[in-house]
């Protein structure tokens, strides 16, 4: 480096003893060493909860028929959560930028309907239909982003509106009916196919989640998104066009939702007009549970995956042990509230 500026360290204008009295030396780039136990539990308590829930179902089902802890069921769980993982990871990027997206479920339903409709009614090749459907998700994200940045409408409200609009467009296109018909095998392979014992959709989810993780944590745009979510004013004064990154984040959320909708249709073999609506609440729950762990107080992808797995295991486990269906949502809601309240009590985490 050619820089040779003398500031405090090399300045001879300041008493040298200051170096000893006021500054500890800085250990270089690498990690803080030695996590103590309580900070470990604080940081990974939610992960621990995941393990405990898993163990609980293993024990309970062992007294019944022992169907929980089988490789078949574990693969099942992964298949069941894969789609949600994709949608929730996209949403995580939006929340990391400081934006909400309450429209992911409705956008997923709409793109699913469009996907099936383009194939069955318009006879388009599935590849083109997929591109068009993902484009629709991108468009929803873009429109939301423009409304949020240009007209300064909070994304919470904008996406609530966009979600309702998506429902309306959905019903206008499908007239409220499900869309059935022959879907190409290549397309249904996405949702139902396997590679060896592993469902393709799980592999797809791992790829998408990994890509977004790397994107958010190792690229410039990702860092800007995190900075924007952390403190928009400071980020803007640091010379960063925050509106661009809010838009990008909302577009990623839109595409994630669209991909989720397309996968769901591929799995079911047909499109239901409100088939993916649940994704809004489930993915928000996963993101919030995720905010209690790994990077605490911040939406982060690994945390979201922990959240997705907790929700998935609760669903699957309660099913297997024969709990009534309504218990699933009650337990999921309680786990969300419990995880967040513990995190807020242990440390002063502010979510928003």
């Amino acid at each position: 480096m050619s820089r040779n500026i003398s500031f405090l360290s090399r300045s001879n204008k300041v008493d040298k003893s200051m170096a000893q009295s006021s500054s500890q030396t800085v250990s270089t780039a690498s990690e803080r060493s030695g996590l103590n136990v309580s900070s470990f539990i604080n940081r990974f308590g939610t992960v621990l909860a995941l393990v405990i829930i898993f163990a609980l179902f293993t024990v309970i089902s062992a007294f019944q028929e022992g169907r929980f802890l089988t490789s078949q069921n574990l693969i099942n769980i992964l298949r069941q959560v894969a789609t949600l993982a994709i949608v929730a990871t996209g949403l995580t990027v939006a929340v990391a930028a400081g934006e909400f997206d309450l429209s992911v479920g409705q956008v997923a339903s709409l793109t699913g309907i469009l996907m099936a409709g383009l194939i069955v009614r318009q006879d388009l090749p599935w590849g083109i239909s997929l591109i068009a459907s993902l484009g629709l998700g991108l468009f929803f994200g873009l429109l939301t982003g423009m409304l949020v940045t240009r007209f300064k409408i909070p994304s919470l409200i904008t996406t609530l509106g966009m979600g309702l609009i998506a429902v309306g467009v959905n019903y206008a296109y499908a007239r409220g009916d499900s869309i059935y018909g022959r879907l190409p095998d290549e397309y249904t392979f996405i949702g139902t196919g396997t590679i060896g014992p592993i469902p393709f959709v799980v592999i797809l989810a791992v790829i998408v989640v990994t890509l977004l993780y790397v994107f958010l944590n190792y690229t410039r745009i990702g860092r800007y998104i995190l900075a924007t979510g952390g403190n928009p004013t400071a980020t803007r004064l640091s010379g960063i066009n925050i509106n661009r990154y809010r838009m990008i984040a909302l577009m990623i959320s839109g595409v994630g939702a669209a991909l989720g909708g397309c996968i769901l249709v591929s799995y079911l073999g047909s499109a239901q007009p409100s088939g993916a609506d649940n994704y809004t609440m489930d993915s928000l729950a996963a993101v919030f549970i995720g905010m209690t762990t790994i990077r605490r107080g911040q939406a982060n992808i690994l945390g979201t995956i922990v959240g997705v797995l907790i929700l998935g295991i609760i669903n699957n486990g309660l099913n297997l042990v024969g709990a009534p269906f309504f218990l699933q949502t009650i337990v999921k809601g309680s786990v969300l509230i419990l995880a967040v309240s513990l995190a807020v009590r242990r440390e002063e985490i502010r979510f928003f």
Partner: protein
Amino acid sequence: MDTLLHLTGVSKRYPGVTALDNVDFTLRSGEVHALLGVNGAGKSTLVKIICGAEPPDSGTMKFKNETIQVNDTADAMRHGIVVVYQERTLIPHFTVAENILLGMEPTNGQLIRRRELNQQAEQLLKRLGVDLDLNTEILDLGAGQQQLVDIVRALRTEPRVMVLDEPTAALSQGETKHLFELLKQFKSQGIGIIFVSHRLDEVFEISDSLTILRDGRVVSSGPISEYTPARVTQEIVGRNVAKLETDYKTASGPVLLETQELASEAFTGVNLKIAGGEVVGLAGVVGAGRTELLETLVGFRRALGGKIMLEGKQVQIKSPAHAIRHGIVLVPDKRIEKGLLNRMNVLENLTVSSLKRYSNGLGWLQQKKLSDVAVKTVDQLRIASPSLTTPVQSLSGGNKQKVVFGKWLAWSEDVKDLIFMFDEPTEGVDVGARADMWVIIRNLAAQGAAVLVTSSDLDELMEISDRLYVMRRGRIVSEGARQNYTHDSMLQLMMGV
């Protein structure tokens, strides 16, 4: 004067750190007792123990010779001890009267008796000699008046001990003067006041005695008459603070930044010239338009008229990103709100403005280069941080301030011909960090940068500036070399008296 509050042998340990070590503290009735120390010296822990927010590990507290136990703030209040925090605790859409009597409203069953509420509030104001309009909503008041409402609310229970935590941080000179008048009145009513402040001039103006904490111990305590500012500074930091040894010169380099009749909602007709190699101070009371001017120059706010010229060429500055490409950067005031990525670490904060340089064509961050430049910056600015991955929120105020500036040091290859603007560079930082910031600012100029500094602290501007502008109500009212001004002449220009 009789003793109001007497603490003996108070200690408090947190995991890994001794916050207070065998501290004795005495407050007499009718005195203003300044509590001094760098950030982390134990001032806020002591305050927390006095007001019951934290229990001490050992030690006793006596109120008028009676040993008391304060387990929470309600307990403290019952013993007549109240705190006015630095942050406001008011409800914006409630009126002054409603805020003053919040939680103590006169009621008729469940209905609030409005007329009585206003009467009670009025009586309280009259007794305290405070002039405020009872029916104004808080959000229509300035910072100084909001603070008055907080103080009046604290005094509604007729306390004997009042703790003021950095009470003047957000106040203009005039408001500070007014506050001090009031404090004198409270003193005469026998109230003991604990005054926590970083501003030594104010401490010497208002206090009767002082206590200096360092590393959790009382290093010095006594009547103010036994101290000089130099001695206090030395005891606070525990060493001699170097005086700036600078050759103050009149503009040396080429004019880098010039404005012609620049106007916005907050100021009009501003003509400024800043050359490379000089530090220009901008003085003015709070609300004079200083922050707005700086934020307009950096494109954070919109200009309504006039020209901004850089090295003689007119430019339109549309956003901070745009300003930075032209080489103008701002180190803003209110670092928590405007300067720091609070949830991110030291490295991420220091490099956020230079990611373009330290990422490849695909936008992939080059971690090694990032940590190299961060290490270098931490070293150059002597930022005291356990590591680069330490969350920036856990640093002290002075180190936070250095991080906010550090991102521009990491960003600039060479500071020559760049324009650096500082808004309240030493707000709420300790004396040591304050001296560091001054050296940093002078060094920028010494290396050919143009520096514009605005501050509410006149001593600071007099200390570091080569040239001064004085702003009043959105206009530049005076300009000249530093030696043409005195503290008093500046004040007169600022206030327009």
